[in-house]
């Protein structure tokens, strides 16, 4: 198998006496969607916060492109090309799509904003993901639907030269049609060569879009399966702990 884009080995994290991650291994490949599933409290959020550099891991190693890396701040994560789209999306509703996509890294020319250049680049980033659902790239985010907002947040990571895009429940609050849109977008992201790590509670979504499924159970990575070679029942077994004999506590 080819070199993993991101490789976590024996990653640990505890908050006081509570061990949330008890030595987790995970591999995410470029061009593939890896779904991260697990019940509430399994450690999914803690795992991605470590990847984002927001809450650094206590122990274990992180390899990016096979190179051992330190991940102690969001800046380091961003420099490597790890971008996280949290559930709240972190968009400014009063700004338009272009302004949101470039927020914090505006293109400047002699101290002033290069609106035209940013507009063109934002539009191309959206087009590269075959986004056709927005009416205008100068719409304010307040006028967008939930799915469109998710689209903008994801496209922003592309603009930021992401290599690994981490999505925290991208379809959680969406209707059927919009879920479809976002899942298609996630698929295209991977098809274009980005590594995608997607947290999801919805196994239908997972089986629809993921290449690999990683299952966390009480802070342990109990399985990393190829979607094509597993079934929904098997995954549920791992999620609920029936299929594993992990020692609890």
């Amino acid at each position, binding site marked *: 198998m080819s070199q993993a884009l991101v490789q976590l080995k024996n990653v640990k994290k505890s908050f006081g006496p509570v061990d949330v991650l008890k030595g987790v291994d995970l591999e995410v490949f470029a061009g593939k969607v890896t779904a991260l599933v697990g019940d509430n409290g399994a450690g999914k959020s803690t795992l991605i916060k470590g990847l984002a550099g927001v809450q650094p891991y206590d122990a274990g190693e992180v390899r990016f492109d096979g190179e051992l890396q330190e991940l102690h701040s*969001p800046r380091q994560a961003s420099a490597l090309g790890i971008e996280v789209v949290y559930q*709240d*999306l*972190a*968009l*400014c*509703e*009063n*700004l338009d799509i272009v*302004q949101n996509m470039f*927020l*914090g*890294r*505006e293109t*400047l020319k002699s*101290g*002033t*904003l*290069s*609106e*035209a*250049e940013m*507009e*063109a680049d934002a*539009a*191309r980033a*959206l*087009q*590269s993901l075959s*986004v*056709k659902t*927005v*009416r*205008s*790239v*100068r*719409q304010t985010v*307040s*006028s*967008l*639907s939930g799915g469109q907002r998710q689209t903008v947040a994801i496209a922003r990571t592309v603009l930021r030269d992401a290599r690994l895009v981490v999505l925290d429940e991208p379809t959680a609050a969406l209707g059927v049609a919009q879920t479809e849109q976002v899942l298609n977008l996630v698929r295209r992201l991977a098809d274009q060569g980005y590594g995608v790590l997607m947290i999801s509670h919805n196994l239908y979504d997972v089986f629809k879009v993921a290449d690999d499924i990683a299952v966390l159970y009480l802070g342990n990575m109990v399985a990393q399966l190829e979607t094509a070679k597993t079934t929904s029942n098997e995954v549920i077994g791992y999620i609920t702990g029936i299929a594993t004999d992990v020692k609890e506590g």
Partner: protein
Amino acid sequence: MAEKVTLQTGHEGGVKGQVSAYFSRLKGGDMGALPAMAAVIVLMALFANLSPYFLTEINIANLFVQSAVLMVTAMALVFVLLLGEIDLSAGVTAATGMALFVKLTNTGWDWPVALAFGFLVGLVTGWVLGMFVAKIGVPSFVISLAFYLGFPGVMLIILGSGGILRLEVEPIKAIMNVNLPVWGGWAVLAVIVIVALVLSIWDRSRRLSVDLPVRPIIFLVAKIAAYLAVGGGIVFMLNLPRSLVAANPIRGVPIVVPIVIVLMFAGTFVLNRTQFGRYLYAVGGNPEAARRAGINVARIRIYAFMITSTLATMGGLMHISRIGAVEAAAGKIIVLSAVAAAVVGGVSLFGGRGKLFNAAIGAIVISIIDNGLGLMGFPAGVSFIVTGVVLALAATVDALARKRAPGMRI
């Protein structure tokens, strides 16, 4: 290399498409300064009918001078209002700075040095307010209220027991009391039009250079024509002799007018075309998103308070120029009127939405009400009541418009 942009950008389509897109934005609740502009026209028509004095040259000139302080103070407040914050002390800060300025000049200081110290009061007060709000987390309403209560005391101490000091600096008095020569007014208009034209063409050429669609050129022509028509009308009127005493002719654009315009253009440039301006809107819209985008939110907040206090001090300077003195009670009322002006003009009190132009037009609405009712012989009480009603009306229209717009929660 660069792929062609096929997504819509809002600049596509001919005149008809653009106009219909504009109306659909209006329907969506994005009315901007439009209600306030309509109010200006309605009020002017109303008072022109009700009072024979309203549309006289001298009254229009007075209106510009009267509204200047309110305009500048309202524009100053926009910077903190955009963050969803408020600075109740902007007026008294300005007055305190001016009290220091006048006191220093009266004790023999060179006036430019004294003026610098006056503005320093604004700058430092803004910094302190910003630190309290951004670093310690004291609500801006409370901390600026503290300054609002405290600064009049500082002024009393500076001004002494009389509570008033005369301004003896002629160049400062000139701001509100001297007019440009007739050609000066036209020159100012020419500069404004040229700057607007150059900026528009610059934006247009940059869009074309990256292969983006542009609006039909007729819009640019119409915009410049509107500048020329409105500006030309005003300059023409202000250039007519307006003195009530024939032996003492008064004509020309008051010096304060170009000053207000320069402040508005410069501030608008900062808000629309610089990273700092963009960040102000971002922090006002969603501070958490701004923080995650790597924006130093605390620094943006502190700068905003510093700009507000300093710009308000400019308003204070105009006030003492007009009155010819600084008094201990100055600056208390103006800040509340300025908040009202900003809201009437379409600036959101919840942050993230509003322009300097909104504040300026709101200030004109309030000044016209004040001026018109005064001319008709109503007591000041009526003017206050009407202003209050207009503010309530503007806030209601704004709330209803936003309610109708799906997804708008600002």
